[in-house]
């Protein structure tokens, strides 16, 4: 572990001040499952951990039928996956939160941290994108929000300005005739980084897809919102044909690299397969199956 200091601010303002003073060497510590490894392996130059787990706003999970869901950026995955309202209204988030790492990782890792780490293969981000989540950010200039699909700017980089940090994630209330689901592929049963992943949300109106969102991961520098896939679905009843078209759109948008976790051919293929699987699962959920 490189030489570093630890701070535990008790207010958002204090956290912002610490981050601002600390400059590029200051990093937010939430669950720590990525950032502690990065500091230990000296992959990032870190000299200050700003632990935000004492900030109630960063730890709470609240649901309101009108306002939707607000998740503190540091709330651990196991709390999200167990939360009653999340389980009944956002099962797609449960998919993600219970697939990140193993049980011990889920005891610490947060969806906020998963987003900020900005891994192309992050298992939380496609779900947040299709659920139209917004990032709630605090910084020296005050508060702002940003659509999650605009948050990641490249592998390991995000849209946060110096001194800013992610405080919470806000998700709109789900439409009654909608369903969403997340799928990923890993070589083992657990403890792997996604070779590819995909999430979908579908809203039906009178048997037809009224609105759709599809996002894929691990196939581009950032998780991708696949606009063409939604286009292929909206306006028609969901069918093998429209699903295949959406899957083809996902495959077409995928521009993966070849690395130790997967080949280009495999990843493009999986983008389609997982898109299809997530669409079918989302449709089942919309129908209440």
């Amino acid at each position, binding site marked *: *572990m*490189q*030489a570093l200091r630890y701070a535990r601010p008790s207010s958002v303002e204090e956290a912002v001040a610490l981050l601002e003073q600390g400059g590029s060497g200051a990093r937010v510590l939430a669950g720590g499952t990525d950032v502690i490894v990065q500091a230990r*392996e000296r992959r990032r130059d870190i000299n200050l951990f700003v632990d935000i787990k004492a900030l109630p706003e960063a730890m709470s999970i609240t649901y309101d039928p009108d306002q939707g869901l607000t998740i503190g950026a540091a709330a651990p995955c196991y709390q999200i996956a167990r939360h009653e309202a999340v389980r009944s209204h956002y099962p797609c988030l449960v998919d993600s939160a219970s697939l990140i790492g193993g049980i011990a990782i889920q005891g610490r890792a947060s969806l906020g941290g998963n987003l900020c780490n900005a891994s192309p293969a992050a298992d939380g981000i496609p779900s947040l994108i299709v659920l139209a989540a917004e990032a709630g950010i605090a910084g020296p200039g005050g508060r702002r929000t940003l659509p999650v699909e605009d948050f990641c700017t490249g592998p390991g980089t995000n849209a946060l300005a110096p001194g800013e940090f992610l405080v919470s994630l806000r998700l709109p209330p789900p439409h009654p005739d909608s369903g969403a689901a997340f799928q990923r*592929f890993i*070589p*083992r*049963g*657990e*403890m*792997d*980084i996604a*070779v590819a992943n995909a999430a979908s949300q579908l809203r039906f109106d009178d048997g037809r897809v009224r609105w759709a969102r599809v996002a894929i991961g691990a196939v581009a520098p950032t998780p991708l919102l696949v606009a063409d896939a939604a286009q292929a679905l909206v306006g028609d009843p969901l069918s093998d044909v429209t699903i295949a078209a959406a899957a083809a759109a996902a495959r077409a948008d995928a521009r993966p690299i070849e*690395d*130790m*976790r*997967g*080949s280009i*051919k*495999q990843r*493009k*293929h*999986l983008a389609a*397969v997982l898109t299809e699987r997530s669409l079918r699962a989302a449709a089942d959920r919309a129908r209440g199956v």
Partner: protein
Amino acid sequence: MVTADKKHRVVGTRPIRHDGTDKVTGRAAYGADLRLPDMLIGRVKRSPLAHARIKRIDASKALALPGVQAVITSADLPNPADRVVPFGEGSSDLKDLARNVLAADKVLYEGHAVAAVCATDAHIAEDALDLIEVEYEPLPVVLDVREAMLPAAPILHDGLRTKEVGGEKGDQPSNVASHLQLKLGDTEAGFREADLVIEREFETKMVHQGYVEPQNGAAFWNRDGRLEIWTSTQGSFVARDQIAALLDLPVSKVRVTPMEIGGGFGGKIPVYLEPLAALLSRKTGKPVKMTMTRDEVFRATGPTSGTYIRVKIGAKQDGAIVAAQAYLAFEAGAFPGSPVWAASRCVFTAYDVPHQLIDGYDVVVNKPKVAAYRAPGAPTAAFAAESVIDELAQRLEMDPLDLRIKNAAKQGSRRADGATHGVIGNDEVLLAAQDSPHYRSELQGENRGRGVAHGFWFNIGLESSASASVNADGTVSLVLGSTDIGGTRVSIAMQLAETLGIAAEDVAPQVVDTDSVGFTFVTGGSRTAFAGGWAAYEVGMDLRRQLIERAAKIWEVQPEQVEYADDGVLRGPPGDDGAPRAITFRDLAAKLPKTGGMVVGRADVNPKTSGPTFATHIVDVEVDPDTGKVQILRYTAVQDAGTAIHPAYVEGQMQGGAAQGVGWALNEEYRYDDQGRMENPTFLDYRMPTALDLPMIETIIVEVPNPGHPYGVRGVGEVPIVPPLAAVAAAIHDATGVRFNTLPISPAAILDKLLPDGD
């Protein structure tokens, strides 16, 4: 379990291991757990390049860091003599061992040690690594075994010439360290007799043993010139001998205390950190402890070879195999010494084949020097040979086990190395597999397949020592030199208990340092329960003789009149009252102090082999054609154990070997970029099976007692990793119709074959 006649009281039962409580409560002390007063922490500076000349090492900045106590480089190692050091399964020239421990003029793989530093705490030692400056002149790298064999390949060792085993050395520098050949009969004539000949090429990648405990070593070089070492090693004596040779010390100056060991599988026989800790201790006068990170374990310890293998087998229409030929090229890593020797002697050894020709090549590449890994060489050789046999069975429309049974080697069958098989359980294992509930069950469902494969391993014998003292409370303290990786304290203690006719719980085994017991070879080669148990048996016989004498003395009769029965009761002729005299071991023990004192038994044994053994594995898989994912649905391992001393630990060896083999087959591999930098040195990306990736592993223990052991024991630890690679490949073929001749058969590899090109 297929059992032999059972007349044992302790052997074959399942007592709780003596060291168990310490290991389930966290009290057992492994190497990293050692704490000594005033102890310093050491770390190793490693090469980021896979092949380079070292131009300069400058440690001055590191030495200036407060808390840093010393830095060493290869200049601190004595100049190694040109000789070979005693070793386990795998060996090293002393010069190579020294160069591997600390690079001298060249680094030969990424992670190669170039310097070591010690400091007052671990954080400072880590900070100091960045302050050691090393200037390199990069050299071209060669990573693939076949490329390394080409005449134009970059040369790792300018002085290396190909040794034709049994012949002369070549006259040009080469990466091919040696070539060996085994020949039986006339393969050309044999293949002419065949109705069907199949020849295939196979490739496997370098894989790691994957023990969960990283290497460690601590040293204190006392001012009286004696060196104390604490380490998690598979062989304290073999470690001592390596350390003494590397540091040019008499062995009597080195004492190795074996700590508990968190897995080894062959990888913890060579020394890495111990000599560095010793040199740092000599420089500072303080004890120094070193541990590796997981990254260092992957990059800089001894995995096993990546291979290129070609196998050609010819059979008659009735399935009789008439000729077999193999070409085996094994990566040795940066220094000579791959297990191609053992692979050559195993590849066709389960079968009675009249005409065989086997060529083996030991090849250096810019990767870490390989070490032993569970049945070294045999798994990849069996992957190739068994895959061809599976295809033969398919083409001949024969049951794959019928084909193997038809050709199974028997007592007297001649092997490729020229020797003949002794009493073996080959047929018995194959027949038990064929008769197993798993093999007789029907496999149903889409995308599912079943595979079987068979394997052979020699097992080794060699030296073990033990001593035991009888306590007045009727227990026995047993002193051993074999480190206990998987329950050998209990299995050895059980054999002493059996010999003395007492309970396993009444024997207290402990593993001691190299000054406290006679020479004992490594825990490896499937030898420990075998040879250690044999030593314990001889200790027991020694105690029996002494106890008979004592009883005779007490009863005032001749020793020849006293019998020591297997139930632990000594019986003598009737006394004055006419009643037969009898005394239990426990009662006699209580009388020892006042009838002449306590008794101590001791023994050393040096058997030649621990009895070859065979295993057949059966596996059912399901392949997801959309993702290429393979799920293991059912798995059965069948194996000849000779006599299973503690059946639960025999089953554990079978299950553990099967699990490692499944990992090797499906996902495990060293991945390098083209500069020789390892891309996946973590447990995240070096994908060993998790609990979710395996089903329960059914076991069938066959017992064909080894006539060369007092209790019929055969080695059991290694052979279970021999069949799984080929068995999984055969099952995937059965499920998909595609033969995969390259490992690992990862989802990417499967999709690549199943999807149309351009998908």
